[in-house]
């Protein structure tokens, strides 16, 4: 078989694989929107209060719970993971200890979320006597996302060219000043896009919220110590536990809303990273 023919076959095969992937994704999206989009877009559903005993309940407080939980959790996890990433990338000596930390982080990243859920239940809900609340969920999810955020931030920091650090130090900047003024601004777009996956994980997480935040509420949570019912957990609850007759509608509509929310957050994070890069005049591609 000559090279040109082989090349053609390879091209067709890889195109095919690409198309199949795209096809599966399209199928999932069409399926979810087909079943739930009409419900999702009706104001009485996405802004209404849920019902415990009758049909026609909405999921307003659940959407708020999800967003509130994601924001709170990232607020806890981001500073810690960026700080730790700075330490690992800029200060710590490469060697056994650093590799051991990385091994632990990677192991932690693959731990099933239900384990984190039980940990959060034991520590925050029971031992700390916080009861089921947003903060318990936020801390638990922060722990869940810490490894992936940290590794992402570390990679972004390491991608900053060494020549920037040299230039800065040669002008009389200390190590910390160099990090603050040159390294972090350059790494920031990468760190921002690195939050997309963890936020998506928070939005989709049900095991953790079942154990830490609660599953059903009728009023919008305000304080971090209020109980909450994030959407993914509520979908699970509506499907398996709820006694309302229109539970299928709630499940399908909720799934469509979840998908829309994740799309929006993903889109916004990318736009923000690009805007930031442009404002800081960084040459980065997304």
């Amino acid at each position, binding site marked *: 078989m000559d090279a040109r023919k082989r090349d053609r076959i390879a091209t067709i095969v890889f195109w095919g694989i690409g198309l199949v992937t795209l096809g599966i994704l399209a199928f999932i999206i069409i399926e979810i929107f087909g079943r739930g989009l009409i419900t999702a877009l009706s104001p009485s559903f996405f802004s209404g209060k849920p019902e415990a005993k009758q049909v026609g309940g909405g999921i307003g407080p659940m959407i708020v719970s999800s967003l509130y939980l994601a924001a709170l959790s990232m607020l806890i996890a981001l500073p810690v993971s960026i700080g730790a990433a700075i330490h690992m990338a800029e200060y710590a*000596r490469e060697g056994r200890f650093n590799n051991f930390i990385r091994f632990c982080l990677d192991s932690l990243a693959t731990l099933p979320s239900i384990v984190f859920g039980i940990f959060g239940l034991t520590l925050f809900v029971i031992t700390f006597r916080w009861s089921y609340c947003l903060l318990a969920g936020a801390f638990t999810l922060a722990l869940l996302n810490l490894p992936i955020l940290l590794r992402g931030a570390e990679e972004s920091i390491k991608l900053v*060219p060494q*020549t*920037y*650090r*040299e*230039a*800065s*130090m*040669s*002008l*009389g*900047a*200390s190590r910390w*000043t160099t990090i603050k*003024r*040159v390294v972090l*601004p*350059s790494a920031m777009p990468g760190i921002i896009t690195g939050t997309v996956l963890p936020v998506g994980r928070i939005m989709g997480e049900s095991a953790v919220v079942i154990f830490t935040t609660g599953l059903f509420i009728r009023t919008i949570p305000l304080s971090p110590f209020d109980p909450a019912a994030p959407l993914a957990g509520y979908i699970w609850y509506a499907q398996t536990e709820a006694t309302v007759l229109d539970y299928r509608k709630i499940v399908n509509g909720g799934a469509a809303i979840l998908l829309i929310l994740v799309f929006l957050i993903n889109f916004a994070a990318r736009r923000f990273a690009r805007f930031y890069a442009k404002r*800081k*005049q*960084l*040459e980065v591609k997304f």
Partner: protein
Amino acid sequence: MNGNGHKMQVKNLSMYYEDFKALEDISLDFPSRRITALIGPSGCGKSTLVRCLNRMNDLIEGSRTEGEITLDGQNINGPGYDVISLRRRVGMVFQRPNPFPKSIYENVAYGPRLAGTKDKEKLDFIVEDSLKKAALWDEVKKILRESGQKLSGGQQQRLCIARVMAVKPEVILFDEPCSAIDPISTQKIEDLMAELKKNYTMVIVTHNMQQAARVSDYTAFMLVQEQGEPGRIIEFDDTNTIFTNPSDKRTENYITGRFG
């Protein structure tokens, strides 16, 4: 040498990376307001030596020095010597132009801002003055807010020189400043160095012997005798003597292009 004094002096310097000895028994004086060139084949330790002069090697784990390097008579490796003030007094231009991913203005203002200059007018003045000294002002005065990384390679290198100027150093180290840029930009940088000689002590590492002959007053020839041995100074004299009447055979062989 001549009577205008030595800005920096290196005495019996040896330098190590972990167990590897990179430089051995280097003794060299850098006269004030003169340009000293370091020449020699790749890997002879020229860059390592200039990086000792502003302690950039400190950034490399496991590096250490023996011997003495003085700036205005003070040992820069002495206990309690402030490395930050050293680097402000001994500026450096690198092999590859390395402007920050910031605007042209912010690149030049970086050093003064570090030193705590916040006043807008003062910064404006320093930026303009430094860019003029680096012979870049006319080309960039209308695009100061654009990214320094959008400039051409030669302009970027002059931006890096302006960035050093803004810190008001006394000594400027050039580590093969023209190896990554075109001949016309190289010419501009050489002219610039000749101009800057009035006020600054300069050290240039170069691969290019014509460049050393053109710009420098003094030249040190360095060499690694055998693979794995440390770099040593073979000969140090005024540039004219090195290039027309070297006293060491090895210098002559290198100058005449017989190796390296």
